[in-house]
């Protein structure tokens, strides 16, 4: 067993003689102090500040007149916010489900001793290396109602082909889904592929000896063992979905109107552009709530699982 160089703090002996404090005892703490301060202030401190602001009547500048839950009431009576939240639900669910599905399937396919696997993997993953702004810009052009896919299909002979989702308030959200899936599914595939590669080969041999077909082996033995990867991917994808701001800004800018708005864009607009700091802060707190709602059960189950082992 590797024992770590744990160095407990020098303490007073019962005889009262103070322990000589050497620089070595303090150095680790001094070194970490900047990060500690930064974390406390710029993460937790700011969170509290924003929380406080959400209970005030701040408009263009922060004010500290408390108005209880008024901002939250205004928030949930705001049509644009409701649209944004609903969009998040739709976008988030579709994005996560499709990414997970694609990721698993592609990982399994790639696991089948494919020639040029490296090249294919590189192609699947490269979207993750570029900014959401670039992605949004590219897809904005591809999905362009007059010049994009629609025009291409029409010119190819499909005269009645229509693809103006980008301009359709009811369908624009799906454009976001397409672009986001394009960007992130490769990442999910990489995660699952790494997970598949980590499966104990002896398990597979045992399954073969037991007579299981390839399909059954995947379904009954391999995939269930990938549950941790699945949950990791779920948490990360949810995080990406909730934070989505760049993609909307580039692809639709919330439009047409505000039909493709997401909470992040709502928050930014109201806090920085529309001088509604209190309202914006409230929206930020709700977003935080969404993240915590996913994170806390996940962490709890992780810790509980560890104790069982």
């Amino acid at each position, binding site marked *: 067993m590797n024992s770590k160089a*744990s160095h407990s703090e*020098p*303490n007073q*002996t*019962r005889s009262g003689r103070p*322990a*000589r404090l050497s620089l*070595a005892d303090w150095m680790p703490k001094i070194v970490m102090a900047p990060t500690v301060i930064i974390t406390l202030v710029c993460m937790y401190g700011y969170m509290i500040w924003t929380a406080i602001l959400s209970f005030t009547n701040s408009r263009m500048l922060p004010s500290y007149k408390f108005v209880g839950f008024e901002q939250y009431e205004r928030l949930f009576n705001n049509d644009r916010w409701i649209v944004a939240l609903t969009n998040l639900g739709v976008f988030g669910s579709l994005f996560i489900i499709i990414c997970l599905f694609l990721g698993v399937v592609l990982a399994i396919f790639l696991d089948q001793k494919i020639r040029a696997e490296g090249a294919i993997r590189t192609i699947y993953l490269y979207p993750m290396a570029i900014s959401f702004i670039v992605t949004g810009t590219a897809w904005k052009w591809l999905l362009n109602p007059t010049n994009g896919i629609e025009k291409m299909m029409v010119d190819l002979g499909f005269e009645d082909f229509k693809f103006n989702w980008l301009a359709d308030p009811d369908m624009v959200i799906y454009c976001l889904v397409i672009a986001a899936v394009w960007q992130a599914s490769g990442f999910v595939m990489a995660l699952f592929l790494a997970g598949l590669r980590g499966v104990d080969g002896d398990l597979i041999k045992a399954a073969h000896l037991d007579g299981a077909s390839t399909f059954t082996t995947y379904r009954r033995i391999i995939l269930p063992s990938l549950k941790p990867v699945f949950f990791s991917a779920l948490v990360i994808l949810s995080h990406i979905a909730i934070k989505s701001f760049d993609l909307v800004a580039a692809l639709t800018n919330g439009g047409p109107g505000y039909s493709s708005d997401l909470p992040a864009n709502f928050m930014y607009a109201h806090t920085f552009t529309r001088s509604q700091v209190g309202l914006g802060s409230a929206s930020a707190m709700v977003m935080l709530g969404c993240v915590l709602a996913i994170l806390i059960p996940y962490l709890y189950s992780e810790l509980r699982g560890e104790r069982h082992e």
Partner: protein
Amino acid sequence: MANLVIENVKKSYGNTEILKGINISIKTGEFLILVGPSGCGKSTLMNSIAGLEDVTEGRILIADKDVTYTTPKDRDIAMVFQSYALYPNMTVEQNISFGLEMRKVPKEERQAEVQRVAEMLQISHLLNRKPAQLSGGQRQRVAMGRALARRPQLYLFDEPLSNLDAKLRVEMRTEIKKLHQKLGTTIVYVTHDQIEAMTLADRIAVMKDGEVQQLGTPQEIYDNPANLFVAGFMGSPAMNFIPAKVISQDGKPMLELATTSNVALPFPKQEALEAHIGKTVLLGLRPEMITEPQPHKEGQPFVTTTEVEVEVTEPMGADTMILTRVSDAEINCRSNPMYPAEAGSIIKMMFDTSKAVVFDQSTGQRLDK
């Protein structure tokens, strides 16, 4: 070289007491071994001696100087670790001279030291290699070289042979013993292997649950264990513990056992048994004291021959271990491989109680001190 005094050292982590008051005094040049099961606190004690952990109470003195609050660097101690802890990015030569470099020893001196140590340990041909290119035994020697080059007052060895295979372990054990004889260094050595402890130590400290159960020479510990734990820990195969009733026969207290029939065994320290007549005690008898009948021992004062039923035999080559049941306890006997003993047969065995010990059944303490 220096002596080491551990004075009433206690160590707690929060509410858990790991060391409960350790008192050990080691003379200059002595080879002391700390032995005990995992969790007994021996590694914690080592770390405290080295200064890598603080003590909650007590003092540590090296060369009669109180070093309880001195940093590890200033205690002038070298340590050899179980996993060798060689610096992976440095060559063997750099590994050995690192400690000297930290102490600002000039380059020529450092190189001379490295040469001296490398020759002593026969690793001169490895000086330019990195740890990853060495075998386990070679790494072990480099780790020792690193400690030797520093010429410290005190050497600490933390289970250095545990990661080696059995054959290499025996070889290195002898090397360490030879080095100690040649250099006269003061050594504190931790192991869980009691054969290592017996062969290497000048004195052994048997530890359990943060306390020293017994401190003595290997022979003392072997022949005169302080309690049940020490008796059962040292010696392989372990000492047999047989429940025996103390009876009075011809005015003398004897120990009654049940084999195929009841037999009464004599005991050297009769006064100790007087007080316990009528009670059941634990008789401690080592396997080599229960043998096939040996003519030259016939008639000796504490030798009794009786019959037992053989359960299992384990041929070991030089001896054969015979497992049998006495007073409902399974015991090991050591016999000549030529002595006929088949599973299920009833044979005669000679019980030599001249070196036997007795323990209280509930407390495990020695009754015949």
